[in-house]
């Protein structure tokens, strides 16, 4: 399709002029920091910045809602490890970023959000499209700035990127009043400061950790999302292989070690595998790597891993001892600490843990997933398992799955295979319905050679359905599996189990025809209803030429099993039959 033509202004890298506007200076700083892609939506207060973008070498992706821009930047950052950047104007543009920023904050994703603001003299006067986004976002950003002077732009931009990306990553907001972007300053003032990464120090406690590990009889690695955030998968895998210890993973830790690794028991927590939850309850030592004892993972905290001593390794010292007492806390750089641990660990008596390994393997066999669901209706767990196998996840063409929130999110975590880190995009902390599609867009733009599949539900997809237009506009090759149970399935499941079947506001049987809707947006689409159609449907989707949507009708009564009831410990899982 053809897009409206734009006459670019002077290139920001063109020969230095005597003066430079704040907007061009800001864009130049972004370029110097290596930014080549941003997501955003223009508007009044940020127009000077948009005026500086064309010809700058920065590609701008126009999402159809600012939340889509923030979540796409999140997806981009998660798969690439680079800072994602999103732009929005003041007022409603800025407030529309809020959910995306909160999402990145709770999942520790490096994002820099740049918002336009009304001109400085108007701030505090209830001006048109004025809102205190600096104040609104304070609890959900790692740090934030209001740029008060054009000359401050280089320092603030450089520091914002440094903060977003170092230590425990997170979103940083930069609010830029319009007059600051319009003002001209001397180009000589426009140099970008450099921030130096602090050298990682390995704490002396590593020696003690190795002693405790070597003495344990029922040790277990507990791998969280911090592993892939820190790019610590190699030392983790080395340590897991070297020790022979079994491991469990949190939702966000999936992919730290391949999910088909023989030592991985499974995901723990509310919808984790029963084997993983039982193993945790029996373990005498947890080696926690980049995890934070989230309530969805631990169940009733007082009864979680009652027999275990805890070694807690995390880059964020504030997480150690926050919810579960650590017998040994190892704060600091996860890569350096895990490498040191792998280097120093010696198993003095490997036979000591042999019975434990046998026991964990027996738990895995006993509680293996059952895909033999009766009936002809499509069984979503089996479909997702088949999809991840058919997708042909390879080193040179990884499968990246971006999912939304609800039952399908848990089915993805339980049944898709993840062999690589940073390939499972899920809104773990905030649980943001509407995350999947924009995150998939960000992921595909970051990793164009990989296969990106968005798995969504009929509730979640409608939260950011407008981003189908973004897929079409830029021909972003994202494949969508839409699992449609004509209801808000997870809410319905909880109402069935914990609210005496009093179904309240969960019916979505008046959904639009999603295949027709996708076609209206310019995507290829198909609908399947019967189990016998699954193979052909997946084959069509995975081999489509460009963005496509497979609309899958599933049984509205299907539940996610197993389930730890709220307030119970992880050993008391409810189980149901596949339907």
């Amino acid at each position, binding site marked *: 399709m053809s897009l409206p033509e734009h006459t670019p202004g002077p290139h920001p890298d063109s020969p230095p002029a005597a003066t430079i506007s704040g907007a061009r200076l800001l864009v130049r700083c972004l370029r110097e920091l290596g930014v080549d892609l941003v997501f955003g939506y223009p508007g009044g207060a940020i127009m000077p910045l948009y005026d500086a973008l064309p010809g700058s070498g920065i590609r701008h992706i126009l999402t159809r809602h600012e939340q889509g821009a923030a979540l796409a930047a999140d997806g981009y950052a998660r798969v690439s490890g680079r800072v994602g950047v999103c732009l929005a104007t003041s007022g409603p543009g800025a407030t529309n970023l809020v959910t995306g920023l909160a999402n990145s904050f709770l999942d520790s994703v490096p994002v820099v959000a740049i918002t336009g603001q009304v001109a400085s003299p108007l701030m505090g006067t209830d001006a048109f499209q004025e809102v205190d986004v600096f104040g609104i976002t304070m609890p959900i950003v790692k740090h934030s700035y*209001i740029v008060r002077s054009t000359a401050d732009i280089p320092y603030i931009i450089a520091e914002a990127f440094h903060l977003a990306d170092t230590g425990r990553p997170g979103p940083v907001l930069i609010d830029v009043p319009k007059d600051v972007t319009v003002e001209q300053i001397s180009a000589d003032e426009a140099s970008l400061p450099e921030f130096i990464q602090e050298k990682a120090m390995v704490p002396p406690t590593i020696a003690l950790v190795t002693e405790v590990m070597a003495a344990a009889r029922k040790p277990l690695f507990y791998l969280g999302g911090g592993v892939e955030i820190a790019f610590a998968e190699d030392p983790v895998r080395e340590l897991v292989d070297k020790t022979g210890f079994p491991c469990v993973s949190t939702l966000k830790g999936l992919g730290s070690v391949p999910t088909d690794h023989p030592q991985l028991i499974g995901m723990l927590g509310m919808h984790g595998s029963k084997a993983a939850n039982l193993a945790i309850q029996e373990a005498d030592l947890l080696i926690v790597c980049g995890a934070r004892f989230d309530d969805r993972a631990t169940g009733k905290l007082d009864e979680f891993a009652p027999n275990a001593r805890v070694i807690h390794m995390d880059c964020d*010292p*504030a997480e150690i*001892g926050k919810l579960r*007492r650590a017998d040994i*806390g190892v704060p600091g750089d996860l890569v350096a600490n895990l490498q040191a641990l792998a280097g120093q660990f010696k198993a003095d008596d490997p036979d000591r843990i042999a019975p434990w390994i046998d026991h964990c393997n027996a738990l895995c066999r006993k509680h293996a997933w059952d895909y033999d669901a009766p009936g002809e209706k499509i069984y979503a767990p089996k479909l997702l398992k088949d999809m991840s196998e058919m997708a042909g996840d390879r080193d040179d063409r990884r499968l990246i799955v971006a999912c939304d929130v609800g039952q399908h999110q848990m089915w993805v975590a339980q049944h898709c295979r993840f062999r690589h880190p940073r390939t499972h995009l899920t809104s773990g902390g905030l649980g943001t319905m509407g995350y999947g599609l924009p995150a998939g867009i960000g992921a595909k733009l970051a990793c164009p050679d990989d296969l990106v599949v968005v798995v969504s539900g009929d509730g979640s997809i409608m939260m950011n359905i407008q981003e189908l237009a973004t897929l079409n506009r830029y021909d972003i090759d994202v494949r969508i599996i839409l699992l449609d149970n004509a209801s808000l399935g997870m809410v319905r499941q909880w109402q069935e189990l914990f609210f005496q079947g009093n179904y309240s506001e969960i019916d979505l049987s008046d959904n639009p025809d999603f295949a027709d809707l996708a076609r209206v947006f310019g995507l290829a689409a198909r609908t399947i209803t019967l189990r016998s159609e699954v193979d052909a449907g997946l084959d069509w989707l995975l081999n489509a030429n460009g963005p496509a949507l497979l609309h899958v009708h599933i049984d509205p009564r299907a539940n996610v099993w197993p389930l730890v009831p709220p307030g119970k410990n992880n050993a008391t899982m409810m189980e149901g039959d596949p339907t």
Partner: protein
Amino acid sequence: MNDRIQARPSTRFDIRLSNSEGALVRTLGLIQRRGFTVSSVAMRTHGNELRVRLTLAPCERCPDVLGRQIVKLHDVTAVDRLKDRAGPRPRPQLRRALAGLFSTRPPTAVEGAEA
């Protein structure tokens, strides 16, 4: 507030932070969000530095964890936990550089110092 909590000593922190936009609000907001109640606060400016001394109402949550959360804020340069009014003799003060390096007990990155 139940009796068990009321019997606990109040917690006092001395916090140094840069006098940058939003720094004080950010710090107090964090304390509130983490479940603590500020019962008194005093602030002085020293050039580009703010020095805030505050007392928190007794709380079931661990003040040492709160101290580590405060010290993570970019604007904050140092956090000292002052001697509890009814508590044991405090340990020597540790500053940001030593925050949470290691402990075999529940880690305490920010520990007590004489007022």
